[in-house]
């Protein structure tokens, strides 16, 4: 994962008339919790509601570096990656397959715990479509897992005693069986 401070911001490679237009596209700068600084293209930054609100509500100058103390650098990279793709596909007529392929790659190297952390971040940053996608991705990953796994993932301690646990389990014993064979 790239940790460069200039993610998705360089546009100098393109040639043609569009380059001149893009050259003057504004940049928004944010700083994550670990001190990393990111330059975002304005159109990508505006996909992130918390950033959009910050700058637009009080007409804050783009010179200001917006702090994001709840976001890690690697998370910002992923968010920028997703939003940039989203913006790109907005202009495409039939991007369904491409989106699906991108989404599959996007989650490929992320552990479920990382996915969960990213979900929290997407919620904090207020990027609805990313949040929906991540919630779906997490649910896909946990749907056939057992109770212990889920507790560990969410950092939750068991607060049932043995008897209570057996009682609750007995309400639907079939739900604890055939965890790998099911499609559902």
């Amino acid at each position: 994962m790239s940790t460069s401070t200039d993610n998705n911001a360089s546009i100098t490679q393109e040639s043609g008339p569009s380059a001149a237009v893009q050259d003057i596209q504004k940049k928004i700068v944010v700083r994550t919790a670990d001190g990393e600084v990111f330059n975002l293209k304005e159109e990508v930054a505006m996909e992130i509601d918390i950033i959009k609100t910050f700058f637009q509500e009080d007409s804050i100058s783009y010179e200001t570096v917006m702090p994001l103390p709840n976001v890690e650098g690697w998370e910002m990279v992923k968010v920028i990656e997703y939003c940039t793709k989203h913006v790109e596909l907005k202009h495409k007529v039939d991007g369904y397959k491409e989106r699906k392929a991108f989404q599959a790659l996007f989650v490929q190297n992320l552990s479920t715990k990382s996915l969960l952390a990213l979900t929290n971040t997407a919620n904090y940053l207020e990027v609805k479509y990313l949040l929906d996608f991540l919630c779906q991705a997490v649910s896909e990953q946990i749907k056939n897992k057992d109770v212990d796994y889920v507790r560990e993932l969410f950092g939750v301690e068991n607060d049932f005693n043995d008897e209570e646990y057996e009682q609750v389990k007995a309400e639907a014993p079939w739900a604890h069986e055939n965890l790998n064979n099911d499609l559902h």
Partner: protein
Amino acid sequence: MAVCVGTEEKHKTKKEKMEAKVTELSKMSEEMVVPILSRLSPKSLMRFKCVHKSWYNMINNPSFVDKHIMTCKRNNHSTSILCKRFILRDVSTEEKEIVYSLITFYNDNSGDEHITVEDIDIPISMGITTRGQFVGDELQGVLHIDRGHCHGIICLSDPWKIILWNPAIKEFKVLPQSCIPDANFNSVGLGYDPKSKDYKVVSIRQDEIGNEDDRIVIYPPRVEVYTLGTNSWREIRTDILEREVTNFWPEFFQLYFKGICYWMGREQRKEFLTLYAIVAGEDEWVRYVIIFFDTTNEVFDHILLPYSLYEQDAQYSDMHIVVWKETLALFGLYRIGGTDAYGLWVMDNLGSGKVSWTKQVTLEAVVGIKKDLEFWNSDEILMIATDGRIASYNISTKKINYLSIESMYPENTEAVDGGSVGNYTNFSLFSIAIDQP
């Protein structure tokens, strides 16, 4: 949103910062639990009740159940069909058996199609059976599946017993006896009152015939309503079904949709000079209509069919109401003048009092198809072929896709029980509270 990071932050130790971050993460995780859980299947959710007491309470909470239903409706990746099939119980004696099965089609967008078949198994303690011996034309104590479903809950009934069944969490509930003496349950429909957030079952008795002033009179049907919350029946007034010279009779329950239960029924003359006159038909006074019941206000009203179906030369069979592209539509085989065709008419202006119909689809009757069952996508119809196989017909591509499930006696499947197959989505978490026998 503050601009300055704050110099206090710098003074905290690295450990403190990390701990703060972890606590924050788990706090935020709680917020994330609901949107993630509401995307899970009922099976996963029933299991995850064991994770933590707060999760147990949350999953049982009616507002979570509601949210879950909404989310599942949006992201639906499977359709279930409840089907009554005939199978060979004993190869040597050729004894046949009726089995109720839940067939689930998993259709994710990659085009992969998995099908699972699950035979319904009602606990013996409930005193009814969904596997029955099929002897000649008779059914031995097997329940009828009332058409349609409500939020994933299915109603099974015979004239003496009604059962609510939630396949997703495998719960059954037997309803109490009717509150009308000598009653039998008939034209049973299950619905949900969105205002009181309660499930209701409507049962419409056979109409009664009486003698008044030397004339034969057909009385409007007696109707009783069951409410899950109070677990009881009560009779409701039906004078609204009576008009000056006619009565409305809701005959065949169709479905529940957005707070309303729909029946296909008749408007018929209520007075006849002789019994013979009723039997002989006197068709000019019988016309078919849609009768619906508002579950909140508990009143009936009616809607006329598309005008073309009332024309002299119009014939049709088994017109039924379906949900098509999120709206109600009428679907069935008809003939006006020439050849047979399937028609789909969409209902417009529902709720405004002036319903109109728009014909959306006309399909030539498909060769090799015995009976149409249900729409299970906006352009796919489930059908039974003449050889008994269940197939899916795609309107757009006009292709028939045979599924490897069958019913041995397609003719009998339709004769024994006109509405024995219901399109249904297997997703409901709603607990109907098992009755301990």
